[in-house]
Every structure is written in C-alpha cells, then in structure tokens.
C-alpha cells in the first residue's frame, strides 16, 4: 500500500458531525453583528457572583463543581463580563443593559467618529480598510482596555481587547462586518495578540507570513 493510501485510510475516519443549515447560520451571523447580547448562563452567574465581590480573580468550590477561576470585569460600554473556568472548560456570561449599549464608532455626514462616554473624536483620517485608530485606558481594577476603530465610512467597525493586570490577553468583543478585516488583523498584531511574533522560523519565513490571511478569503 502506498503512503497516500495509508494516509487516506487513516484520515478517512474523520467526519464532520454538524448538520449545516445555512439559514440558521446566517441568522446567527446577523445576530452577532448586531451584538444582541442576552443574559445568558444565569445558572453559572448565579453561583459565581456569590464568590466574586469585585473585579479580579477568585477561586471557589460549589456544591457539585470545582470552579477553578472566575474573572469578572466591565467592558467600556458598561457590559459586565464574567469568565468561569471549570473542569477544563471556559464559559462566559455577558450581562448588558441594552439601552446603554452602543457602538464605539459612528458614521455621520461622511465622517467617522470614535465615541465613548463624553468622547467624540473625528478619526476619519486615521481609519481606512488598512488602518485603525486606537484608544486605550486602564480601569480601576487594572484591566487594560484597547479599543480599535477602523474601516471606512461605509464599512466601519471596532474591537475592544481586554488585558488583565499581568498583561495577558483575556477577552475581546468586536463588531465588524468581515470576519477579520485587515485593519483589525494589523491592530491585533500590534497589540501582540497574534500567535507568535514576526521572527524567522527555521524555514526562513516569518510567522506573520505563514499565518497571513488574504483579504477576502478570511
């Protein structure tokens, strides 16, 4: 038997288990884009809040489950995020006040604005399909929030990246029309949240080249 036959025989055991329903997938995508955040996982949140009085990391035991780690913090838009790690699985709950939710970017009369609280800054010249504007702050609990706004007036988007006190990238939320626009890839890379840094590997290519994503094919 040739190597190809052996390989095919070995990998022919892999079968996708998903029943793909395009209509359902499209609805999900649209839902994500509009960022309709629901109060989810209340069962998790219910016991988690007993142990987490404030932002930070806690270790807790529940009646039936060992909860290894709980992280609780507030996004720039006021949404409360709780991350729970238990039994080697991570789940998270986002609780938002829909009335307060808003995009960090707004397009008005052909101009792009970064909007956050009282801040409204014209970032039109700083943003394009390839370029982004960055706003950064550290909250009272030491979480660093990096908000990236990019794209064009016709297709603008934003992403908020959260880094904990140790500088570890722990969470993000974003609202972009494409899966990963170029400006966002660039912004994330510059925040060091891509896998690896652009150092030469033993094939003489950079990890950035190796993992590069072609616009329109991601």
């Amino acid at each position: 038997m040739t190597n190809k036959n052996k390989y095919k025989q070995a990998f022919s055991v892999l079968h996708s288990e998903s029943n793909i329903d395009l209509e359902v997938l499209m609805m999900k995508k649209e839902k994500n884009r509009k960022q309709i955040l629901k109060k989810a996982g209340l069962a998790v949140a219910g016991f988690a809040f007993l142990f987490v009085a404030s932002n930070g990391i806690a270790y807790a035991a529940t009646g039936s489950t060992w909860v290894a780690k709980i992280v609780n913090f507030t996004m720039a838009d006021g949404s409360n995020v709780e991350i729970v790690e238990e039994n080697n699985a991570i789940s998270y709950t986002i609780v938002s006040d829909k009335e307060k939710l808003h995009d960090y970017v707004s397009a008005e009369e052909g101009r792009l604005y970064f909007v956050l609280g009282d801040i409204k800054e014209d970032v039109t010249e700083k943003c394009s399909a390839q370029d982004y504007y960055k706003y950064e702050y550290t909250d009272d609990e030491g979480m660093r929030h990096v908000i990236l706004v990019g794209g064009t007036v016709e297709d603008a988007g934003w992403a908020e990246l959260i880094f904990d006190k140790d500088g570890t990238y722990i969470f993000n939320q974003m609202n972009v029309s494409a899966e990963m626009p170029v400006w966002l890839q660039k912004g994330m890379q510059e925040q060091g949240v891509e896998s690896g840094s652009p150092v030469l590997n033993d094939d003489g290519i950079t990890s950035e080249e190796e993992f590069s994503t072609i616009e329109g094919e991601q």
Partner: protein
Amino acid sequence: MRQSTEILIEMYQDNLFAVAFNICKNGADADDVVQDTFLQYHLTKKQFDNEQHIRAWLIRVAMNKAKDKMRSFWHQKSLPLDEYIETLSFETPESANLFEQVLNLPEKYRIVIHLFYYEDYSVREIAAILKVTETNVKVRLSRGRKMLKDILKEEWEDDE
C-alpha cells in the same frame, strides 16, 4: 462560475473538516470552521474559474479560519485529543498510529503533508494555496516525511 452551497457541502464537508481538524485537533472547533467556511462561500459574491478553484478557495478559507480559532482565547468544549482518537474507528492499528503521529508533527509540516497525501495536491498547488514558495513546500514536505519515517519505520515508505 458559482456552484450551489448545498452541493459543495455534500462534496467537501468531510474534506474541510479533516483540514480544520488537522490544524485545530478539536472536533467541535473543526465543525465550527466548516460551518463558517461554507457560510462565507454562501455570502461571498466572488466568481470562480472552475470547480478546482472553488475547492482550493474553500480549503484555504478553512485553514485560515482554523488558524484563527487556534489563536482565539475561546474554544469549543471538546474531548481531549487522545479521548477523541479513541472514539474513531480505524481500520488497522497502523492507521491509528499514523493518524496520531501526523497530529504530533509541527503544524507547518502537518498541513503540507495533509494537502499532499489526502487532498492529492501537487507541490505547486500547495504553494499556491499556502502562498509560499514551491521550495518552501518541498522543504516542509521532506522534513515532515522524514519525521514520519523516523517514527513509523517500516509502516511508512521512503518516498523522497
């Protein structure tokens, strides 16, 4: 040209799953990648030269999405790899061993090996899909083969 997404799902769902699994090593993440890839095809207005162009595009998108999944903080809850492998029905113990050893290869070799041995792509075609040089593909293929040969011994032919 365009082809109906439903037909492509029938034709390539398992192939894309295998490509994604090769990168993610996680069935649930690989299923997510497959769904996202077909959804992207469904939504794109891109025109293709022929069916092979569509297939290569799907594989490329699936690979990119799988790599993004690996970078992401969030992963679907799934069986650990060794437990997942135990659920698979291999025809022979040698097949199970080959499967496991391929997944132990570094990702850059694994992908090239998979495209060559499973998808039957040539070095030139793999270079085009990965956007790297043919020399680079040859190097990766050669190193991957050598690693497999060193581990699998007589279970893997020397096809350099």
